């Protein structure tokens, strides 16, 4: 039986708002993964991409990484890693920080070579396929925009290798940094489920990374643990973690282990239609959410979007002031407040937000027809004439002698009364 930990999207070095605590949060989350691996004496740890948040790594980030990797090294637990879109070698740096760690033997970086043959066995320095004494581990990296062709080629090569008896009596585990069927929900690129079926049919476990939300399909043998810590303020912090996997012949057993992390709240607040004390109103909502969801022993991340329509001169918000009020009541590490209220003058023509460009023309023109003194049952007729005029006038002058002119003349005569 092989026993391993599968995590992804560690994002060491992520620090979007330049907050020291958040930077440390990333390291703390990874530390919990390593601690578990050592306690359970797993055979190895898989990191399916985006170990680092940036291609360039600062000293403290490297220190964070090495501190944890050395603990695993001491416990004789190898770490297999594949590149993600964040930490793959960029066009300016041919030699990446992951390659540096791999050359130091802190990790084993598995990556494909972009030439005729994508898959090579590990030669001590590089390669995509590693033969561990309990399993074969394959790193496929981040496939980018040509994902579907790339996976097809990988599948074909793998089939050939199996046919040539290059894999003997051990499970095959693949790491891939790409979303599966995430087009609609995350509006992201990636692969369709049917595109990886050929691959999952011949391997035993597909370890995914890239999408920060956990999802899996046991039948299709693919698993995505999501990030171990919230990278963006909008991420949901209450279901972060990694997989603990036991694999024996064809029996697969997975367990999702939660990681304790920084709480965050991302709220969208609609203001009511009446005049109120807006600061109190917002504060009440935040306090309620905080009480329900957050742990009380830590400072949280807070994002608020305030939506609605208000009369000009009312419901105005001074964001600095609001931040001060919130900070007095709730322990916050960072606040991101967006005032999206639309302030409207009373004289403004009230047209709702989702009205299309054509509808606006229609509304304005019809209103003008009414103002010109036409009765309700005539408005549509006059509007139809205007619509036809817009179509005909494109081609130049309209005279009473041409077909368009005749049509319009007829329509005008069919309106029995004038305005």
């Amino acid at each position: 039986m092989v026993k391993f930990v599968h995590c992804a999207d560690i994002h060491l070095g992520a620090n979007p708002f330049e907050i020291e605590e958040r930077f440390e949060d990333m390291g703390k989350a990874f530390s919990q993964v390593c601690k578990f691996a050592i306690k359970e004496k797993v055979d190895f740890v898989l990191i399916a991409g985006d170990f680092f948040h940036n291609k360039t790594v600062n000293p403290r980030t490297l220190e964070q990484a090495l501190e944890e990797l050395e603990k695993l090294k001491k416990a004789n637990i190898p770490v297999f890693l594949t590149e993600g879109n964040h930490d793959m070698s960029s066009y300016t740096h041919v030699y990446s920080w992951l390659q540096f760690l791999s050359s130091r033997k802190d990790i084993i970086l598995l990556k494909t070579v972009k030439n005729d043959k994508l898959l090579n066995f590990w030669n001590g320095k590089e390669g995509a396929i590693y033969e561990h004494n309990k399993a074969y581990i394959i790193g496929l990296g981040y496939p980018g925009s040509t994902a579907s062709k790339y996976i097809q080629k990988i599948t074909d090569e793998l089939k050939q290798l199996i046919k040539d008896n290059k894999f003997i009596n051990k499970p095959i585990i693949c790491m891939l940094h790409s979303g599966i069927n995430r087009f609609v929900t995350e509006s992201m690129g990636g692969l369709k489920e049917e595109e990886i079926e050929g691959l999952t049919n011949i391997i035993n476990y597909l370890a995914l990374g890239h999408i920060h939300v956990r999802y899996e399909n046991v039948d299709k043998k693919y698993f995505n643990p999501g990030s171990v810590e919230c990278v963006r303020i909008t991420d949901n912090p209450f279901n972060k973690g990694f997989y603990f996997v036991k694999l024996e012949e064809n029996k697969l057993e997975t367990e999702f282990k939660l990681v304790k992390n920084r709480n965050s709240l991302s709220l969208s607040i609609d203001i009511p239609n009446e005049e109120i004390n807006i600061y109190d109103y917002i504060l009440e909502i935040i306090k309620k959410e905080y009480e329900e969801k957050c742990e009380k022993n830590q400072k949280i991340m807070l994002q608020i979007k305030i939506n609605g329509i208000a009369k000009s001169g009312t419901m105005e918000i001074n964001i600095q002031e609001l931040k001060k009020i919130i900070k007095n009541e709730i322990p916050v590490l960072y606040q991101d407040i967006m005032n999206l209220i639309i302030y409207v003058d009373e004289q403004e023509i009230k047209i709702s937000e989702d009205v299309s460009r054509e509808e606006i023309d229609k509304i304005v023109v019809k209103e003008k027809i009414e103002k010109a003194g036409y009765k309700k049952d005539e408005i549509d007729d006059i509007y139809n004439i205007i619509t036809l005029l817009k179509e005909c006038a494109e081609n130049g002058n309209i005279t009473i002698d041409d077909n368009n002119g005749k049509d319009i003349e007829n329509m005008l005569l069919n309106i029995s009364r004038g305005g």
Partner: protein
Amino acid sequence: MKILEIELENVKCYKNEKFNFENGINFINGLNGAGKTSIIESIGFCLFDYKIGKTGFTSYYIRRGEKKARVRVIFEDNENEKYIVERKISTTSNNSWIVKDIENEEEIVSGEEDVRNWIKQHIGLYKDDNLSDIYENIISVPQGMFTSAFLDSEKNRKAKFDPIFNLEIYRKVFLNTASLESGMKNKKMEIEKELEVSKTKIEMLKNEKQEYEKINKEMENNKKIENELTEKYEKINEIYQKELKIKESIKKHEDLQREKELKKLNIEEKIKLYEKQKERIELAKKALNDNKLGYQEYIKSQKIQKELQIKQKEYEKVKDDIRRIEKDIVSKSTFIAMKNENIEHSKKETEKLIIEIEKNLEDYNKNKSRIEKDLIKIEEKENDLRTFEEAQKNIIDLKNKINENILLIKTKKELLIEKSKLIDQEESLIKSKSELLQLLERKNEIENKIKILGENKVKIISTIEQLKESKKIAKTGICPYLKTECINVKGKTQEEYESEIIKLEYDLETLENEINKVDKKQKEILKAETMLQSAKEKLEENKNVKKQIQIITENISKLEEDNEEFNSNILDYLKRNQIKSIEELQEKMKILSTSFTELNKNYNIDKTRLENQKNNIENQKNKKTDFENNIQELNKTIKEALKEKSILENDKKEYINATKKYIGIENMIEENNINIEKNQEAYNMYIQNKNEVEKEAEITLNINNEKIKMKQLREEILDNENEIKKLEEVYNKKDMEENEQNLAKIKQDITKIQTIIETQKQRIDELIDKVKKLEQLLQNMEKQEKYYNKYELAIENISKIRQIIKQAPDDISEILIQKVSRKATQIYAKIANDNTRLEWREKYEVILIDNIGDTKIEKEFRQLSGGEQMSAALAIRIAMLEILTNVKIGILDEPTVNMDIERRQRLAEIIEDIGGFFTQLFIVSHDDTFNSVTENLIQLRTKET
């Protein structure tokens, strides 16, 4: 819409390259000059007819040194259908622009105008949108123009944004409908003229209508008179018609009377005829009675004749059966005789075979005992031969072993000589070893010496260098020690330096000689060291060699002992077989082998012969059994045949008995025939008269019927006579003639008045058309007047409509600006995340409102910082894309220009949020801020040249 793939061939820095795009954010990243903008420009050129620079585009766009370029885009329209758009451009104006089917690449539309319209329709643009304007001003604003449009004057801003707001059309409609309005006014005047003409025509027609009405009245009176006359005529006619009917009825009854009298005569004739027939029948009855007996006799004889003929046929058949059985009995007897002959023959053959078998068996037994004796002899010989072969093999084995050992002994002896030579050198080695040890004792001494000499040499060299430097400095008049000017150091001092240098250089030479000498010595020592080492090793090795020599010597003596033993073994073998030598052994074996082969050959021939004999006997025995079986079989057959024969003979007897009852049948037939001939005539007479007598009843019936008919007819004639008398009493001839005359007169009067009415009718017909025409004219004029009124209203309407069209754009643009502004305000709030609010006001003016405590400060666009300007422009551009088009793709070229790192990161953080409206958002940038948030990353490397 959605762009799936773009392929560039000979475009700017690309030779041939293909890029795939995904849903969401596509980030095109690379250093300056890597070809990012080329991709964007190619999307613009191929899908939106956008050409940067307008003039000189061809040479700008085609790769240097090439003559033509091609760009090919696969895109999905708003209905999710996929298409290929391909555009080629060349320096020789050989250009094309085609939309193709994705499946078979067949052309769907081509030609610039048609392709433009096709694309507009398929990507959700309005018909009157200008494709390249929309692209340049909304979808993909070029880097330089991104913020500059908002810095322009009010007039220029209007010129730029009005077309985007798609309001041009209203101006066009207003202008292009002016001639319609004037045309309608002219038409109104024409209608007025037509109305006047109609009125004159109506006055003329009114007189004719009056005449029509007068004639119509007169004609009505005449019609009344005509009706009265007609009524009178009909009354008289009714009486006259009745009289006419009675006259006709009298004539009819008289005709009927004549007809019935004729019928009466006819019936009387028929009754006479029937009575004559009845007399003839009475005669026939008598004849029938006379011939009855003869007839009955004849019928009886005919019946007997038939029975006799059947019996005669049965008799003939029995006789046939007897003849057949007799024939079968003869053939069975012949068969039995033949089978008996066969048995006799088989018995003779069997006896012959028994004698032959006995003789053969005797012969076989004799031969068999002879061959068994021969076999014993052969086996003896074979045993002898095997013993000899074994002896020979053993001896040869031993001899081989001896020879092997002799060879082994020879090599071992050679090895022994070699090893002994090594031992001989040992003495001289020991001697040179002690010499070398003596030399080594001096090693340390010499090394020390080298060290000291080396140090001296360094000292001297550095002293010389120092002196040379000092000499050089001193030459310039500066004191080499104090580094100040000094008159003492010139002239004489130079020589002193020189002589000291020379002296030291001599010392150095001497020293170097000595170093060389010592070096040589040291090398000797080093060599001695290695030699000593090898000498030691060799001596050590010799110890091993001695041991080896001893082992080899032992080996040799053992081998020699083995050989002696082998030789004695050979002699033993020979003795045991009573043979003097191996040659004799071989000679004996040869003789033995020949005689063995001979014997074996004879034995085999005899054996085959014996087996043949045995087979022969077996065959004869089988034959004998076959014959015996055959006889048995034949006996059985004969027995069955005899049984069948006796059955046949019994049958024959039974048939002969059966013939007895048919005797005398021929005589009986003869007698009966005479009887038939005798009664033939009586039979014929009887048959003839029988038919006549049968008619009697029918004739009697006919006579009765005719008599009844006669009675009925007489009654009818009487009735008819009475009827005629009754009618003649009613009929009056004079009245009838008077009525006839009256009727003729009235008819004349009617015809006269009808002629008058006809003339009046013709005149009315002439007038009625004119009256109708008048009525129509009146109706038409009413319609015309109504139409005229309506037309006046229509002219009023078109004027109002044109006014509405003239005023609408201002109201629409106000709303659109407001809408875009609201959206932009929200987007800006997300990007800026501070206390400022963006507003886009009337006349396309950008204002940023800063909330500082309780006061608000309004800033114009040109007063903003570079980062603020970029953020504000980005917010408005994205809002415009969302609100003004259905294209759902946007291209942002270097959107982070002028933004500080914080703003850049903020933008990257929220880009997905604000880009949610788009199917695809293309971001082109040289900095990698967006790397971490985008899904489809296209990284371009600068081509190395």
